[in-house]
């Protein structure tokens, strides 16, 4: 900071403009010449930084991290003004961390005050990164409720550790969030995963932003009902991306999203989470999925499963247009066998664990039936080396991601562990190795 100040003083002292060749930043010089007929240099042939045109300064400032911009703003009045240019405040990420619960630094409270005072009407793309403490979530709500004269385009409430918004009194959270909904009127992207958002607040969202909303991510929001999300889908015809939990997914919702008035959906992300062991899950009709695919033939369906093995009953009975499939817990051979039969659009498959028997036939079937499959990750899933090689051979070069732990590859009479890297690399057309864990 000291250095910056010193340079600033010099710049202010030598105000005259003298032309002539000399050292300095040639790039800046060229630009200056283009923008201005007069070259701005002092007696020493130094560029007079003070008179840098605003738009150039803006360009430079846009490349600087906030802290550097803050230092630069102390150089001179002109730069200080530039620091506050609205263009630099359209996008801001508030980092709210408490020293007791996080290792990361937090956005300084003074800066937050200043932003609310001077720039809240400039903010358009705002996110809050919040650690696991309730205080941080509260601080985020306090800031939100002060954003009364702003018009946000995007808002993200992101819990970086445990979801702390869930610990707030619901009414407190809702009133802060609805301030933004009511005032913004042109929200296009909203990420509110793991928050206590509820049906009435979604109504407010729809009432004010239905023409602009394109993205809504609200996985694990327990206070929203299927009717609440249906209201969003019915009214927001521009919605292209949606993330929610399986209990909000209904045939009606899929039909609403595939209605004629609705734009093509691009991404639908569904988290299938078991609240209590042995839970019964509803089913989605094949005709509803078919309607979705007809309306949005290219849409991606991303499904994350966090279920106990015995809860998969209703799933993968009929064809489902899933493209990205993730099994976060152990899943049976049988279910994976069904995946091969019912998921023709599958692009990525990640299986964290399966039972004790190797997955051989299931993999072969998936290679055979899922012609789009280009990424697969297998965690604690035993596979015989032959079956694995056969799988890779069938998929060939289209497998751009292939991840399996070395320790689950079972050598057999055809291939040992030393051969498999060669065989697989040959079929993939690039060097490949299994993933390893330190044996220490």
């Amino acid at each position, binding site marked *: 900071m000291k250095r910056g100040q010193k340079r600033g003083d010099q710049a202010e002292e030598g105000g005259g403009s003298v032309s002539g060749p000399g050292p300095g930043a040639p790039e800046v010089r060229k630009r200056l010449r283009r923008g201005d007929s007069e070259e701005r240099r002092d007696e020493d042939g130094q560029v007079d930084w003070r008179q840098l045109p605003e738009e150039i300064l803006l360009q430079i400032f846009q490349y600087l991290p906030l802290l550097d911009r803050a230092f630069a703003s102390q150089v001179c009045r002109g730069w200080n003004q530039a620091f506050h240019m609205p263009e630099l405040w359209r996008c801001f990420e508030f980092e709210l961390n408490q020293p007791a619960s996080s290792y990361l630094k937090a956005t300084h409270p003074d800066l937050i005050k200043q932003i609310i005072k001077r720039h809240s009407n400039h903010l358009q793309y705002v996110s809050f990164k919040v650690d696991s403490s309730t205080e941080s979530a509260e601080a985020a709500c306090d800031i939100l409720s002060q954003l009364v004269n702003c018009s946000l385009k995007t808002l993200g409430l992101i819990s*970086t550790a445990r979801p702390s918004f869930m610990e707030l009194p619901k009414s407190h959270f809702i009133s802060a969030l609805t301030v933004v909904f009511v005032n913004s009127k042109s929200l296009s992207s909203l990420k509110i995963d793991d928050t206590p958002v509820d049906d009435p607040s979604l109504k407010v969202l729809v009432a004010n932003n239905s023409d602009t909303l394109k993205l809504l991510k609200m996985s694990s929001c327990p206070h929203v009902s299927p009717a609440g999300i249906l209201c969003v889908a019915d009214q927001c015809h521009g919605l292209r991306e949606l993330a929610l939990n399986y209990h909000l997914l209904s045939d009606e919702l899929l039909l609403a999203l595939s209605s004629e008035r609705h734009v093509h959906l691009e991404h639908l992300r569904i988290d299938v989470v078991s609240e209590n062991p042995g839970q019964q899950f509803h089913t989605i009709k094949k005709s509803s999925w078919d309607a979705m695919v007809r309306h949005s033939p290219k849409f991606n369906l991303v499904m994350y499963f966090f279920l106990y093995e015995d809860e998969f009953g209703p799933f993968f009975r009929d064809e489902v247009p899933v493209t*990205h499939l993730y099994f*976060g817990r152990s899943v049976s051979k049988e279910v994976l066998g069904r995946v091969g039969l019912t998921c023709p659009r599958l692009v990525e498959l990640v299986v964290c664990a399966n039972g004790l028997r190797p997955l051989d036939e299931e993999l072969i079937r998936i290679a055979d039936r899922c012609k789009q499959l280009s990424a697969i*990750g297998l965690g604690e899933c035993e596979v015989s080396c032959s079956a694995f090689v056969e799988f890779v051979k069938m998929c060939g070069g289209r497998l751009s991601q292939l991840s399996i732990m070395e320790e689950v590859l079972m050598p057999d009479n055809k291939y040992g562990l030393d051969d498999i890297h060669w065989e697989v690399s040959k079929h993939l057309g690039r060097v490949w190795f299994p*993933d390893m864990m330190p*044996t220490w």
Partner: protein
Amino acid sequence: MGVNSVHWFRKGLRLHDNPALQEALNGADTVRCVYILDPWFAGSANVGINRWRFLLESLEDLDTSLRKLNSRLFVVRGQPTDVFPRVFKEWNVTRLTFEYDSEPYGKERDAAIIKMAHEYGVETVVRNTHTLYSPDRIIEMNNHSPPLTFKRFQAIVNRLELPRKPLPTITQEQMAKCRTQISDNHDERYGVPSLEELGFKTQGDSLHVWKGGETEALERLNKHLDRKAWVANFERPRITAQSLFASPAGLSPYLRFGCLSCRVFYYNLRELYIKLRRRSSPPLSLFGQLLWREFFYTAATNNPNFDRMEGNPICVQIPWDHNPEALAKWAEGRTGFPWIDAIMTQLRQEGWIHHLARHAVACFLTRGDLWISWESGMKVFEELLLDADWSVNAGSWMWLSCSAFFQQFFHCYCPVGFGRRTDPSGDYIRRYIPKLKDYPNRYIYEPWNAPESVQKAANCIVGVDYPKPMINHAESSRLNIERMKQVYQQLSHYRGLSLLASVPTIQEEAEPPMSDDSQASSSTAGQACTPTPAPSTPPSSEPSSPTAAAPGTHTQRKRGRPSELTSKQKSKVQHTNQAKGVEQKIDDKQ
């Protein structure tokens, strides 16, 4: 004036394969073997009783061996910087020898001692024996940066000549030439202290499984080789329930303290393999365990911040939680997950756990369940784990928490299923958590799911006699996978839907395929062109080729342009620091 040597033992607590000690003896008139220990520091240091016991036993064993050679071990109390000036004068020292320490802290300490010795006119001789290869040499061969993936490391190792052959043990004749007068009060002044002297309370050493010292190490080495010869199959051993228990053939603590020379281990394995397999050279995988150790030593040698997240250029910045209460539950084995608690109990009681068990508890503490920094876990291991070397410990923790080395983070171990897979009957749990011993197999990994009648019959009510699980694993793994994805997407600037693609690709490995030379040179990285049905057996797997023993060698040769690779690698790492930039935009795909 004659040559008066001091050999300074730190690690390398052995008389076999000890080149620095040989240098001390070489032409010397007197030799003193010294270990410096600060008893006042001992109590406060973050080192648990099992590690101290192991060290003291190793020192006792050294002293016993030296006595047989008519010499003694001098355990000098104090700090090296205070001890050496005193000792140099008192003993008229002219030569100081010690084993090279590649770790940043050790290098700094040794540099100061070497400077001091120089000022006292004492010659210093340093020999590298704690690792098979010189970490600096590997870094040099990788274009002056440490390899960041294990495969890359193996490829470099494959190009190196074999490690130096181990030296024989010190003989009576050698020692006879430089005998030292042992004073009558030697035991009083220089004896090996007891645990009590260091401030530890000891009660009945019933669970004392690992006995420190070179003698024990060499016996174990024989058992280890016998077992290998018995199996005669050098494939990765099948992991069974039995693997989880301390094995009488386990060697890792002995390598850590240098009671066993890694080179002796290496050559014994190699010779056994050649004898049984009649093949010219064994594959690298034979030395897996040793090489992991080398890998982490190499990664750490020039990185003083290797053991922390902040300021560590290879460590991904992850917004871990601060949660001392949860950390304590984990460290003390009170998580309510019997598999995790049994492992932590074994670690605390015995000082060693199997590597799969390490994976399980490390994953549980960090990215899997509790979302607590790997640094906290590393410190607990440092206190309790006998084989915890600074580099290996920090490196393993970074690896297991997916904080470095480009790991796929979806490999998440389930605290119930993972253990059950290894030990379906739960004998391991019954041994370390006797409270649960009467639970039926079905519930032993998840006692909270047992019906009340079963809990009562087993005399252990969950929530009363044994804790309830501290976390819902399904819920936490759902959250954590999202958190990891956030972190990695920022790092790789990847915005797509693929989970696997969020992890930056490893440039080191994304290189032209093998097959034969002409193909490799015509194809370029990234352009995935399937090689024409190439030679059915890759050239390097032919037994006749003496230099190319394992797949890595061949690949490495084809890789080419190493300089470009390293620069890419560096820029990747820089992303790590930029990832936390203020100007990050919320992704609004419009």
